[in-house]
């Protein structure tokens, strides 16, 4: 990383500041640990910082006395790009404290900063150009402030993502095997075994973590939900939930179910083929860390995805197992980027234990609406708390350009 750090820059910065600015710094520091200065005084213009290959970070020295508030970032380049404020030197060297993406040439965009004491520089990542780093500025900031996060490079997650993809493919094989069993049991008229196959296959499918449309239209065909009542839905549900709707009734229409199960088997085969022929992006892996629990909250714990099987707890168990798997794989990059990584694992373990406890109650065979309120509150709160704790991972671990 090229640095234009120099004593001269710092001296210039100090001169630019002037007496008033220095007093402001002293005033802020003098107020102690509580973070006070949230915005520059009225009438004082916001620092304008240049984003470009040739003059990256011009104007940034003003933050020496205004480490909290907004700066205006102006793209003076002919290219679009990304601008970051990064720590220079020290334990957090390279950590990102502010980030502005999708900056268009000729535009000026405000960027909020809240810099703790340290040395910082602006990094300009213009399209098709090597990153350029501007002059280093020393900041007397607050004791708190934004938590800097070292960016994750795509390359750090490639191996992990490949391993994950292989594991997903392996699990998909087991789901397909279960669906074959489902077809056979339907053909032989063994409905209890067929229902057991469906539950196991559906839980197994949750382990794939296909949340939030991760598998696109194929995912919808496999595990999609009705888009409305039959009178309004021009694309009736297929896959798991169509079978669920017809199988968990008193007198299922077996012939139709066999057709639906075969269609599901064929969609699963297509997914299997796609998993072998295309590469999962590391971002997909990172997003799944919280999106599986988001799906669990929106689809399952609201009762929306229960079309008759009343297997919310089995689904939850599969979803949480899938989340745990993703989290384990991400563990190496969590350190230094998430404040309490160990707590995430503890919370996940606690929530899984809660699901197992509820699975030993009549809730295991009831729709969520029929659960005692306290059970619903306990599980929804645990999962919502988990989703809240996992959400930062998607931002902090998002693969970013580092070169």
């Amino acid at each position, binding site marked *: 990383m090229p640095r234009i750090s120099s004593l001269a820059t710092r001296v210039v910065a100090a001169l630019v500041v002037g007496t008033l600015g220095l007093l402001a710094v002293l005033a802020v520091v003098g107020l102690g640990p509580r973070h006070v200065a949230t915005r520059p005084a009225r009438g004082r213009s916001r620092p304008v910082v240049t984003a470009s290959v040739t003059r990256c970070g011009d104007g940034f020295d003003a933050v020496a006395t205004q480490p909290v508030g907004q700066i205006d970032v102006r793209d003076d380049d002919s290219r679009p790009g990304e601008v970051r404020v990064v720590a220079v030197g020290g334990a957090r060297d390279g950590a990102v404290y502010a980030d502005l993406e999708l900056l268009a040439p000729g535009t000026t965009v405000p960027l909020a900063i809240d810099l703790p004491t340290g040395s910082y520089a602006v990094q300009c990542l213009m399209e098709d150009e090597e990153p350029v780093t501007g002059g280093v500025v020393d900041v007397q900031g607050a004791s708190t402030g934004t938590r800097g996060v070292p960016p994750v490079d795509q390359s750090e997650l490639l191996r992990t993502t490949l391993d994950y993809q292989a594991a997903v493919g392996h699990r998909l094989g087991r789901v397909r095997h279960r669906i074959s069993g489902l077809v056979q049991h339907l053909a032989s008229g063994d409905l209890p075994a067929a229902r057991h196959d469906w539950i196991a296959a559906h839980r197994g499918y949750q382990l794939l973590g296909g949340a939030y449309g991760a598998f696109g239209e194929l995912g919808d065909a496999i595990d999609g939900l009705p888009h409305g009542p039959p009178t309004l839905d021009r694309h009736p549900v297929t896959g798991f939930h169509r079978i669920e709707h017809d199988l968990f009734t008193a007198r299922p229409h077996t012939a139709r179910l066999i057709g639906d199960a075969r269609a599901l088997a064929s969609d699963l085969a297509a997914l299997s083929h796609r998993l072998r022929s295309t590469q999962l992006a590391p971002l997909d892996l990172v997003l799944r860390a919280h999106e599986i629990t988001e799906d669990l909250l929106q689809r399952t714990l609201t009762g929306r995805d229960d079309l008759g099987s009343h297997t919310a707890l089995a689904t939850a168990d599969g979803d949480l197992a899938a989340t745990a798997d993703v989290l384990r794989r991400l563990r190496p990059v969590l350190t230094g980027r998430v404040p309490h990584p160990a707590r995430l694992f503890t919370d996940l373990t606690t929530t899984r234990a809660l699901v197992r406890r509820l699975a030993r109650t009549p809730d295991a065979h009831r729709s969520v609406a029929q659960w005692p309120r*306290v059970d619903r509150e306990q599980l929804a709160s645990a999962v919502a708390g988990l989703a809240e704790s996992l*959400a930062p991972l998607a931002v902090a671990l998002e693969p970013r350009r580092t070169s």
Partner: protein
Amino acid sequence: MSASMDRRGLFRGLAGTGLAAGAAGLAAGCAHAGASARADEPATDAPDGPDRVISPYGEHQPGIAGEPGSAVSVLALDVVATDRGGLAEALKALSSRVGTLTQGYAPRPTGISGPPSDSGVLGPDVPADGLTVTVSVGASLFDHRFGLAGAKPLRLKPMHAFADDDLDAARCGGDLLLQVSADHGDTVLHAVRDLMRHTRGALAPRWRIDGARPPSRPTGAPRNHLGFKDGIANPSADDFDALVWAGDDEPAWTAGGSYHVVRIIRMLTEFWDRVGLSEQERMIGRRRDSGAPLSGSTDADDPDYSDDPRGSVTPLDSHIRLANPRTDATADQRMLRRAWNYDAGLDLAGNLDLGLVFTCFQTDLERAFETVQHRLQGEPLVDYITPVGGGYFFALPGLRDEQDRYGRGLLDT
């Protein structure tokens, strides 16, 4: 699950701390102590004037005695945490967020460490906008879970159905209640989202009802969905020690608190609109247009029943006369009422689901609310209104300062 609470630390802006209260007069309609306009902000923060900051600190929670905001959200929650430590952590998170939100602040940028700390619905600088949050506890909090049975306020109990009620269990009770009020609905909802986010995993939302206080039409107290001015008569601040704040016989930790009743009262407005005006006025005991008591000429006149023992002017079973007969014997049954109109869509028959979020604060639940409620039983008005939810709560004492937290005295017992 505690991660979501302590990982978002308190971030307090300069705004609103230690500022002169000299601008308080600018805050229209805000007459109570503890309100001050932010001196460092020009009028640009709020569309209709300087930001109204109501300090959350003091002997009492400011949302009780203060002028009610024009919007409210009443949110009941259950404590999911299973021990006292978990409860304390949730109350601590609430305290610090209320301290921040009620004074206005600039949310902290998170860089790439996570999603934004704020929903952004109030713009980059969050105004105070007259926000108050009243935190109350329900009787269920004093069960076996937290070892608090011995600390229960003497008069706190679950709300049972009265004779004219049609209670929906899904809208009743709760371990905790947050009554969030502000000058605009977006500020209220912003605060609700923030408070829920910071207690996610520890507090489970149970039920919620939103309400609004319409502007004066054309003057005086706002009108309810029946077209009548509501909340004209309330005890004056001089009587609050006797009528509103917890009494000396209560556990010591309750000092400064108050019994807090919430009633979600459905109003059958289509039916009401098919009733003649004089019958409406007889049922209420006031003129519809002016709000004047039937015994008076303007809404500023106090109702006077002294020469009307048989109800020739104000029927004996009119709502205001039953609710407050204005005798010496019933003087201590008065309570501080705060009500907002709610609008919740339609019922199955296509009737509007309109009503009142009725809240009141008092020293003694039975002496005030319950006594009055029993007296109102069977009043002619009950054909047009149906209580469907709510509960009994105890509004905690106020936060003393920034270091204090809700339930401090309670959890130390």
